[in-house]
């Protein structure tokens, strides 16, 4: 059965999504369990695939028995193997962690919610695993559509934010599609690796250049790189918390993965990194993204919105790291996809937990949270430290690679931006810590007693805490096993030509 793993990853959740929807009519509680089982299988399969990849280098699966370029093939190699496992794990953990809050927030809509949830995961994982450029578009649309819906059910101005996301997302996806069309004009093929084998003959062609630019523009919009980021903060701020802790870790990160995949596997490094001027300007773009994201984050007054801006900066990390076009930089970018996904999950889960207990996530509502929900906030501290980049959490190590990449490429602007962003993150997160730590206990020092501690303790339910703790521990574990990750997997994901 193990040869069907690539199909299982996608197909099992897909079928499960249909089941969930039907089961929702019967009994609402079934939905969660079906989703959990499906995602568990998916996680298991992706893990199995990663192991296969570690043994056999590349796993290829032909759908319909047609070999590429005629049929659609899934191709799992080191790069997507690891991203796959991480996405599956995130989806699964978030599912478990948000059970309670889904039941609270979507009383009547649990069935559709889980169906959309699982479909979103299907789309995302499909994007990661597919080897066909057009198939990627379709999966992208699945992920986006479900994402729009999930975000649109949020609070306050969610519908408007989601609609804006629809517009931007559609432009992005359409641009990607257009880019694929240009590639198709130039090569006549849709399979990524087939395109890659044809492209070297026609590198000089204007069409390929345009394909490159258009694809990138689309992907940049989708991943919310700085000038095209406008959809992200609103969408993420108003979205329901169980959804956002799924969408935020996966969407943008996976889009960065797609960028890396397209540029490394389709256009090949010899085209993508041909011109130093292009690389540098993209890195500068990333630098601007980092700086602007960080500064904008400073001016925010609610937790999720602040995190959204932090994410915009983080996207700058990955994009910039990739465009440094050296081994350390790309390693850093890939590593940061994984790490950032994990830490985003962590902080957004905490935001979800907070919202589960507290009416809103604006900073005024965070007062005294360390006392009220110490475990959640503990996990938040870990996540925050990771985003700041403090060893031994994983964020440090990807930042490490990124900065070494920046130094190696001689791009000190990027290095400075990274350091600047770390410092800003310190300010950002410690501001929250301060609020959570100081605010309501100004005079407790005098009258404080142990009893009051007991009374105010009101953390999220255990079912939400345990996965959160696992994620937080995972952040540290990821950090500690960084080298294993890099030497066993990521270094093979980068083509040999890049030094």
């Amino acid at each position, binding site marked *: 059965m193990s040869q069907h793993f690539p199909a299982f990853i996608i197909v099992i959740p897909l079928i499960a999504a249909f089941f969930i929807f039907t089961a929702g009519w019967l009994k609402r509680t079934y939905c969660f369990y079906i989703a959990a089982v499906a995602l568990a299988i998916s996680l298991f399969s992706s893990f199995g695939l990663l192991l296969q990849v570690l043994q056999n280098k590349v796993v290829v699966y032909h759908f319909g028995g047609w070999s590429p370029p005629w049929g659609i093939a899934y191709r799992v190699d080191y790069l997507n193997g690891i991203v796959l496992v991480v996405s599956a794990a995130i989806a699964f953990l978030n599912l478990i962690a948000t059970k309670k809050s889904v039941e609270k927030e979507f009383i009547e809509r649990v069935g559709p919610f889980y169906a959309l949830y699982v479909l979103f995961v299907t789309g995302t994982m499909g994007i990661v695993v597919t080897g066909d450029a057009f198939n990627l578009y379709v999966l992208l649309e699945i992920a986006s559509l479900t994402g729009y819906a999930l975000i649109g059910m949020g609070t306050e101005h969610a519908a408007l934010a989601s609609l804006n996301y629809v517009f931007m997302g559609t432009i992005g996806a359409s641009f990607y599609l257009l880019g694929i069309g240009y590639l198709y004009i130039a090569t006549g093929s849709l399979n990524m690796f087939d395109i890659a084998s044809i492209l070297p003959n026609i590198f000089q062609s204007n069409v390929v250049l345009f394909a490159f630019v258009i694809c990138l523009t689309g992907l940049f919009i989708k991943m919310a790189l700085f000038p095209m980021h406008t959809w992200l903060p609103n969408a993420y701020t108003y979205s329901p918390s169980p959804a956002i802790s799924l969408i935020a870790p996966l969407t943008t990160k996976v889009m960065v993965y797609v960028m890396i995949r397209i540029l490394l596997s389709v256009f090949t490094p010899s085209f993508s990194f041909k011109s130093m001027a292009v690389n540098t300007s993209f890195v500068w773009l990333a630098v601007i993204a980092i700086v602007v994201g960080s500064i904008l984050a400073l001016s925010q007054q609610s937790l999720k919105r602040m995190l959204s801006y932090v994410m915009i900066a983080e996207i700058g990390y990955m994009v910039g790291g990739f465009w440094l076009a050296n081994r350390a930089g790309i390693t850093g970018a890939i590593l940061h996809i994984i790490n950032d996904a994990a830490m985003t999950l962590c902080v957004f889960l905490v935001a979800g937990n907070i919202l589960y207990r507290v009416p809103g996530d604006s900073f005024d509502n965070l007062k005294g949270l360390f006392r009220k929900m110490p475990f959640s906030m503990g996990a938040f501290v870990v996540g925050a430290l990771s985003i700041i980049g403090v060893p031994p959490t994983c964020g440090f190590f990807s930042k490490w690679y990124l900065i070494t990449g920046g130094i190696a490429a001689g791009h000190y602007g990027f290095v400075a931006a990274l350091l600047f962003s770390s410092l800003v993150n*310190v300010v950002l997160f410690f501001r929250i810590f301060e609020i959570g730590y100081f605010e309501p206990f100004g005079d407790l020092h005098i009258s404080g007693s142990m009893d009051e501690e007991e009374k105010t303790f009101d953390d999220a339910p255990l079912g939400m805490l345990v996965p959160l703790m696992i994620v937080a521990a995972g952040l540290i574990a990821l950090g500690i096993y960084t080298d294993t990750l*890099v030497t066993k997997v990521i270094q093979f994901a980068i083509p040999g030509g890049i030094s």
Partner: protein
Amino acid sequence: METIVSIRPFLAVLVSILAVPLIVSTRRTNFREGWTFFAAFAKFSIIASMTPVILDGVEIEYTIAQVLPSVAIKLKVDAFGMLFALVSSFLWIVTSAYSIGYMRRLKEHSQTRYFCYFALSLSATIGVAFSANLLTLYLFYEMLSFATYPLVTHHQDMEGRSSGRKYLLFIVGSSIGLVLPAMLFIYHMTGTLEFTQQGFIAGIVPPKLIWILVLLFVFGFAKAAVMPFHSWLPAAMVAPTPVSALLHAVAVVKVGVFCILRVLTGVFGTQLLFSSQMDTVVLYLASFTIIAASLVALSQDSLKSRLAYSTIGQLSYIILGAALLSPKGMIGGMMHIAMHAFGKITLFFCAGAIFVATGTKNISQMVGIGKRMPVTLSCFFIGSLSVIGIPPGGGFISKWYLILGTLEADQRFMLFILLSSSLLNAAYFLPIIYKAFFCTPEESLFENKIDEAPPWCLVPLTITAICSIFLFFYPEPFFSLAKIVSVGIFSGQ
């Protein structure tokens, strides 16, 4: 040099982390503090058990995790680290006891949290002491910064908040902004971060960059409170006194100094420093700090602030000792870590005890207090002797070696600095003693009866005072450790 692999250093780091869940999970206060004590003793005994091995000139290594190619999170115990670890782990025991008295008497809130973070900070301190490479050092350094933040801001009031901000701004800002890039740059140039006896960047890094790197490190380890980066320390004095005592006389600030020393010797190496003349720069920086801090201390009325500025000055002694680049100076610097620790902690304990007993923080209000708290103030006297460097205070030994070092390195100016600074020290400590014992208050502020702090406070400070004297007569373990270090470092010359 022989090396053995053993898990003991890791255990020494881990033991107090492991104590955290125990402390958190216990509801009864006695058990909670029992766990703290247990952890402290366990830590000290583990470290002590390694001492003989180290004294034999053997190093102990333990790799926790390989995190980057050619860089691991790795612990290595050598004489220098051992010295520092011994001092801090021993003082933890004492401070734990003192904390119990202090905290309970003042009915501080959130004592559980207090003890947790105390334990965590100690782990980090030992981790720094035992780090085998720059990355590990950085890791534990940051861990210490974050673990002490809740301690510094323990009172959770506006003052705590602003000083917490200052604390973080200086400590974390400088470490991320200055140390991290320097470290990354070194890694980029050399591909390794492992400390060696003679440094590893000589010949690889261009000389011009050495200047920048050294300065980045010296200022970046802001915990050492070298002068422009010092102002967090007085601010951090809002913390409860045991915190100030252990962390801001021993653990945190000494970690900063330790890091600077470690990096100067282990990364740059004495020869490189000498050849690039960076030693002079560091020397002048340190001497400036010494004099300036002492002068500022003179003007402080709050006892803890005065102690804090004193600390700033004393820390730079150590840096100065190392920067002299002479074996004797090095020994002096190392010894001063221990000696100053015992002396200063006594002083802080005393300040705390006075606060506990009378609620007084300012020196001007302490007129005649010696009659009321004779034991405390006697210990205070001993402590100040040690810090000033007058026999039989332990500080005399380290200062002596420092002076020898200046002579050895032929730095007359530094000699002058040291001596004048000692005078200043005396000038800001002795009046307190004088006022306390020999002046009678105008109003009968204190009744003329003995009213000491509770025994949980009193006993520890007595112990440290006794130790301080004891070390004057028997500095052997620290001395031999310092000697090993010095020999190791300067054997190449």
